[in-house]
């Protein structure tokens, strides 16, 4: 699974992209975000407020109950501010 971070999520976490095999308990966006929080204190801080963390799976906006699997590209980002 490839995870991308944008804007201040990227700044706070300190990386733009992570690639890993998620553990079995990661089945949807919600469980993925919970698991990401355990990776480092920076992850936990950046992802603390899920209201301001939007998600796209394979470049489509999705809700937190959307399923994710190993081959997916998952992007986490703040609400867009437009151009």
């Amino acid at each position, binding site marked *: 699974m490839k995870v991308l971070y944008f804007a201040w999520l990227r700044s706070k976490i300190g990386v733009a992209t992570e690639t890993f095999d998620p553990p079995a308990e990661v089945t949807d966006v919600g469980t993925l975000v919970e698991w990401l929080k355990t990776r480092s204190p920076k992850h936990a801080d950046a992802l603390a407020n899920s209201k301001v963390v939007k998600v796209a799976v394979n470049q489509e906006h999705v809700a937190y109950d959307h399923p994710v699997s190993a081959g997916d590209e998952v992007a986490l980002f703040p609400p*867009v501010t437009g151009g």
Partner: protein
Amino acid sequence: MTVKVQREDFDVGAELAAMTRGRTSIGGVTLFVGLVRDMAGGAEVSAMTLEHYPGMTEKQLEAIEAEARARWPLDDALIIHRYGRLEPGDQIVLVATASAHRDAAFDSCHFLIDWLKTKAPFWKLEATPEGERWVEAKGSDDDAAARWAKES
């Protein structure tokens, strides 16, 4: 129908000429050119950096352009959106819509820029005298996009 997301500046005259050359069914083209202002939210902005999600941005811009084509009788539509570092006075975005009918050209261009300014997957990092700050999403812009919501 064209969508470009690019770091480089664009030439409005050349884009307009490419859209209209040799075509005699177009009654008019409405264009909107967005520029970087030196004031944003009251603080002085010396530069801004637009970050985006390559791939997803293009997909979303193509989708909204297709929606505009479905809602209005357009001969052509063009969106060019820049990313990267931009300074006050720089061009950010161009929307151009061509139609036999000027109301269709105006409404579709307005619809597209309202969407781009609120829903397009860009994030703004502003450089101010107090340092850099990520811009937060604004409610007033959402209102601008909401006016185009179709009654179901």
